[in-house]
């Protein structure tokens, strides 16, 4: 219990931990699907604390990590073109492609700019009418409304030199893919609170029903996670499988309707390959036909590229929950945050980076669980 003193709400946390131990008659396997949750779990040692009754498996909750290698390589190709200003969230710059990353392309003279919002990228396009501005549209349903608005505005304001390189992913199909994998061990999910702030949770209801899997919409603070785990354990022990909302202070059942409408106007569901997991039917969003002019892949005629993953990287196993980061032979050796071999070591939401920052001792000292 060495980490408990660090909790903000120590008392509540302690009673939740006690309640979880009381509720569990056996050890259950839970997966969290939000990189922020992974970060909190590893940092606070929640997995170790509950190791006797819960195994926490870290899911593909990091959009940076699941952006397919081919899309990174396309980004690198675009960013190398002289007429292009390539704009992106900062997280993507160090993600390794087959042969380079955006940082290196920038060092070699590529015009790569970090933006905070896709509207900033649109503004750059308006200020540089002689250049082509491409925005790397990655992320889950949380960033999709923002990227949808950027495209919508571009059309409204008749900005002709703005396009998106789209690599949006949608969470529920990935959860299905994990549950239906033959080696799956996950018995309940902690769903991502902020994704559900946008989408609500109606989409999760048939999923919980069909697969007999409890799904708890959970926040990312330590107490949120403990409460989410307790709700999941109580369902599992009681033989129930429902969608429950732990994160009531931000999530409503129907989510944010205006944001959903914006996504639906601009994007449609498409099959998308997730890095480390493979192709997922309807696992992502692509631009609707009406917005084809804003699709960088079309505008620049980008063909499919042959992409090669690092042979050492086991990110696929990590993202599917079959391998803990420290079980990867390259972890902390060939692969470190400054020189990542795989995407999960890049973003602070990635599981490998979280373990590198907070869980290094576990490699030598055992898991304590």
């Amino acid at each position, binding site marked *: 219990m060495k980490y408990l003193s660090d909790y903000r709400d120590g008392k509540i946390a302690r009673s939740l931990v006690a309640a979880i131990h009381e509720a569990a008659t056996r050890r259950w396997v839970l997966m969290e699907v939000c990189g922020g949750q992974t970060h909190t779990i590893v940092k606070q040692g929640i997995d170790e604390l509950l190791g006797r009754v819960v195994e926490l498996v870290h899911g593909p909750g990091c959009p940076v990590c699941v952006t397919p290698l081919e899309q990174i390589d396309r980004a690198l190709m675009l960013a190398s073109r002289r007429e292009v200003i390539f704009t992106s969230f900062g997280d993507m710059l160090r993600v390794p492609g087959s042969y380079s990353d955006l940082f290196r392309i920038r060092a070699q003279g590529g015009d790569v700019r970090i933006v905070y919002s896709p509207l900033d990228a649109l503004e750059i396009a308006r200020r540089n009418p002689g250049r082509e501005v491409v925005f790397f549209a990655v992320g*889950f349903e949380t*960033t999709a409304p923002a990227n949808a608005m950027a495209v919508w505005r571009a059309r409204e304001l008749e900005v002709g030199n703005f396009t998106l390189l789209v690599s949006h992913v949608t969470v529920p199909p990935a959860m299905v893919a994990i549950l239906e994998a033959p080696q799956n061990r996950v018995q309940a999910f902690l769903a991502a609170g902020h994704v559900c702030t946008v989408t609500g949770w109606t989409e999760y209801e048939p999923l919980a029903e069909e697969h007999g899997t409890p799904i708890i919409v959970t926040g990312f603070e330590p107490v949120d996670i403990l409460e989410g785990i307790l709700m999941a354990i109580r369902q599992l022990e009681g033989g129930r499988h429902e969608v429950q909302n732990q994160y009531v202070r931000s999530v409503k059942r129907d989510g944010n309707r205006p*944001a959903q409408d914006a996504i639906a106007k601009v994007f449609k569901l498409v099959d998308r390959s997730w890095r480390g997991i493979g192709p997922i039917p309807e696992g992502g969003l692509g631009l609707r036909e009406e917005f084809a002019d804003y699709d960088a892949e079309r505008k620049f005629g980008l063909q499919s590229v042959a992409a090669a993953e690092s042979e050492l990287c086991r990110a696929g196993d990590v993202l599917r929950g079959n391998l803990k980061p420290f079980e990867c032979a390259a972890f902390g050796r060939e692969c470190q945050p400054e020189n990542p071999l795989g995407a999960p070591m890049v973003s602070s939401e990635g599981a490998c980076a979280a373990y590198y920052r907070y869980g290094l001792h576990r490699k030598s000292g055992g898991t304590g669980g």
Partner: protein
Amino acid sequence: MCLGIPGRLVARNSVEDLPMGVVDFGGVTRDVCLAYVADEVSVGDYVIVHVGFAISVVDEQQAQRALKLLREMGRADELLLIRDTGDLVDGYQSGEAR
């Protein structure tokens, strides 16, 4: 990128018909698109902001807690990014855009 940052809405405006507002993230301010919370937000409210868009309205206490947690998590980089890219969009920020 999926966590979002809570901040307090200190002013509302509209830029080329897009509902915008100024949000104070513990001392750093910048313009944020309010299109997705336009009907439920008022000046003084706390909002969760993802990549420049408010996606939900929250109460002050939880906003403060989340902000503290983000700092602990080393997500201060996002706050810095907000500050550093702020001038990039000055033109449309203040509503005097073209």
